[in-house]
Each structure stands twice: as structure tokens, then as C-alpha cells.
């Protein structure tokens, strides 16, 4: 397996590994251990805008890197925006091989799970 520099960077020094979420933070998760990938986000949102994003991930280095990378991109974005992430762009940014697309998909699902709660 080959890992891009950015994947290695985020894997080695993951940003924003979720500490205790404040009571009003949005929590979301997707995937399962049996499937080999499980991602969880915890977003602090103020008036629909994401302030701080944290993650946890059980999965391959790509999964961890995608989730970590996303927590840097999310702050400042409106929760509506994250309903439609540009997955191609993310995969390209992180140099994911095609067989690792499920890592992005799982992260997207986890984000949707979190924001759906705010929207729904």
C-alpha cells in the first residue's frame, strides 16, 4: 500500500482528535468495525456555522487522514454546505487510490449523520 505525504502527515499527527464534546455539539457516526471503517465527528455549531470540529476514527490510515483533514476544512462552513461535499476533490487532495474511496464515503456519511440531527 502506498500512502501520500499528506495522508502520512495526518496519520502521524492527526488534527482535532475529539476531546469531550460540549453538550450542544453535533455528534455523528458512520461505518462499523466489522466493515473495517468507523468514523465519528463532533461539531461545535453556532448559528448554523461550524466553529470547531473533532473526529475519531477506527480504520486504515486513509480513513484517519480524511477525517483529520476534514476537521481542518470544516470550521467556518455552514452546516448546509457539508451536505454536499466534493468527494472527488477530497480524494484528489489526499491522493487516495480508487480502492480507498470508501474512506471518503464513510466520512461523508458521518458528517451527514451529525448535521442531519441539527437540520432534522
Amino acid at each position, binding site marked *: *500500500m502506498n*500512502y501520500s505525504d499528506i495522508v502520512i502527515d495526518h*496519520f502521524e499527527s*492527526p488534527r482535532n*482528535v*475529539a*476531546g*469531550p*464534546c460540549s453538550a450542544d455539539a453535533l*455528534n455523528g*457516526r458512520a461505518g*462499523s*468495525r*466489522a466493515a*473495517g*471503517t*468507523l*468514523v*465519528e465527528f*463532533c461539531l461545535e455549531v453556532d448559528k448554523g456555522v461550524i466553529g470547531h470540529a473533532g473526529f*475519531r*476514527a*477506527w*480504520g*486504515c*490510515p486513509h*480513513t*484517519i487522514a480524511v477525517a483529520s483533514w476534514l476537521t481542518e476544512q470544516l470550521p467556518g462552513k455552514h452546516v448546509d454546505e457539508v451536505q454536499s461535499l466534493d468527494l472527488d476533490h477530497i480524494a484528489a487532495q489526499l491522493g487516495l487510490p480508487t480502492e480507498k474511496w470508501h474512506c471518503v464515503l464513510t466520512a461523508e456519511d458521518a458528517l451527514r449523520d451529525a448535521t442531519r440531527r441539527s437540520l432534522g
Partner: protein
Amino acid sequence: MKPPIYMDYAATTPVDPRVAEKMAACLTTDGVFANPASGSHVLGRTARGYVETARRQVARLVGATPRDIVWTSGATESDNLAIKGVAHFYAEQGRHIVTSRTEHKAVLDTCAQLQREGFEVTYLVPGDDGIVSPEQVAGAIRKDTVLVSIMHVNNEIGVIQDIEAIGRVCREREVLFHVDAAQSAGKVPIDLDAMPVDLMSFSAHKVYGPKGIGALYVCSEPCAHLEPIIHGGGHERGLRSGTLPTHQIVGMGEAFRVAAEELEAEAARLTALRQRLWDGISVLGGVRCNGHPAKRAPGLLNVCFEGVEGESLLFAVRELALSSGSACTSASREASYVLRALGRPDHLAQSSLRISLGRFSTRAEVDRAIEVINAQVRRLRQIAVCPESSPVATVRDTVKKDSP
């Protein structure tokens, strides 16, 4: 980047310098390069002599008669020759074979091929400690069984099967017994003179000899008959044709000679190193040893780490050269079939590391491995989410408890 610490001796071993030196003397114009089959000149006859010396060296390590040793290209071929050879030779007498779920692919894929040819195969499921009991074997033998094939030391989890007891069952029931000893020769004592074994596979590259050379022990008393799988020229008593690769054979001979000399002391040293490793990493908690804790080859440890994912674990500890599952399957993301046969769920099987130590492993290397593994497992557990069932907060607590 400095090279990783090699802890994958079960996948292959480096060639011992003593072996490399002997091999080098059989290659170039100033060496013993002639064809051992060239009986018409002294150069060929000298090469033949080297081949026969090596045959004696291999035989001596395992208590066999030199004449019963047949050179092959490795244990994969030896397994194929033994199993197909017996199946095809005795096909009139019966078409049933007994083996186990945790055999090497060389045995399993060969049995699958025989199934395609119309043979029946019973795959015994070992206990969750990886051990196949003689009673299981006795229960599986039928009237039309012609062969039992059970490995000596398992290449993934390192457990040692009770070959003596299984062999006695086979002798009683007059069924031929093949043992894949690729992982045990030179590491665990073997005495074919006393053991009830008819066929045994060996590989040089697991014992500090070269890759691409192996041997099959074919017991001549009582006599085990085989159909060859490679024809042409009738070398090796007609059982395996092809030019004998002198340098490879000489390498295997020297490797087995050295192994015979050092087996005892090395087994003690490696057992102690393995224990040190286990003591060092088991403090992590959530760590389990795959396979029987005591009945195991000296240098091999297969450990399952709860709460971390396999690929990340392997990459995180990349300062150590080791594998999850066997080398053959480590390219695929499928969980090891051996660990699954032991009843491990996929995600735990995937979070396992096979750490195998050998002749050049040092205590400092083991200590460094403990440091790296412990730090990385703790780190990954901290990044990991909780199991689906428990709420996020609880995970954090669990992780904290385990943290230093």
C-alpha cells in the same frame, strides 16, 4: 531512512554468512559449477559429491536416511509432490484425504485441486488454541482414506502439532502421513528415525538457507510410493527431474548443518526473547496471543490488539518489518484464514501482528519493538471510536484508563 528492524523470520530468513560462502564456491569458473549429472568428467563428479554431502547434512538434522531425501524447489513443491504424488499413486485404493483448515496454502490449494479431480478432502477445524487432536484425526479417517496431511509448526501462529500422536493413529489405521515441516525444521527437534511419519516437507529459506530449494523426505521403510509431478531425465530416483542446482543444495546442506549444531541454544535464546516481547506488550491490556500459549515454536508470536484497525497498526509500526497474517496473504486485505479458523472475528484477525524472531534478532531489537508497538497501539486507540454499542464518552474513559 534507516532499514526497519526485521521481525519477519517466519516469512523468510536471511542467508547465514557461512551458507552464502559455501554457495559462492559453487557458481563461477573457479568453483564447483559443473552439472552434477555430468558423470563423464571429474568436474561433474565433484559436483555430485557436493550434492550428496548436502543430502547427508539435511538428513542428519531430521534423523533420516540420506537416500530418503529428495531435492525439490521448496516446501510448496514438496507439499504438492507429497500430496498429489500419494493421491495419484494410490487412487485405485481410495480417494479420501484428511487435513486441517490451518494448513499452509501449498497444502490447501493442492487439496482443492485434488477435489476438482474427484478426490474427497476432510478439513479438520482445530481447537481455538490452534491444535488438532489425534482423536479428531482418528475420527476423520475412513476406509478409503489414503493420506493424512498435518503441518508440524504453523507458519502464522506458531503452534506445534502433536505429530507423534497423530502419526501413531495413521500407522494403526495404515494411512500414509505427510507433515509440512517448513516452519519446524531447525527450530524444533525432529527425529524421523523414531517418528511415525512417511513424508515430510522442508524448505531451506526458513532456516537461513537460500530460497528456491527444499526437500521431501520419502520414507522407504515402510515404503511410500509417489507419482512424480515433474518428469524428465529421471533424477532423484525418478521422483523429481531437473538439473540439480548445486549451489542451492550446498546452501541448504550447510544451513541444516548449522541448524543442527545451534538448535538447542538458539531455541532457548529465542524462547526467552519471545517471552520478553510478550511481557513487554501484554501490559497494554486488550492484547491476546493467537494460538496455544505454550505449544509453540521458539521465535513466533501472533498477537491480536483490540481497539485498533489492522492496516493502520501495520503502518504505524512500520519501523518493524513484520506481517499481519502470512506473507502469502499479506498483500490482500482479507483477514487471515488461519485466525478465522480459530474463531477470531474478522476485525480482530485483521488487528493481529505476526512477530517472528530469529538468529539475528537481539534483545535491543525486541526492546525497541515493545516501545514502538506500545506507543502506537495507545495512540491509535486514542484516535479510535468506541465499539458501536457504547456511547462516545465511555470510549474516552476506556482509552484514558489504558493510557500511561
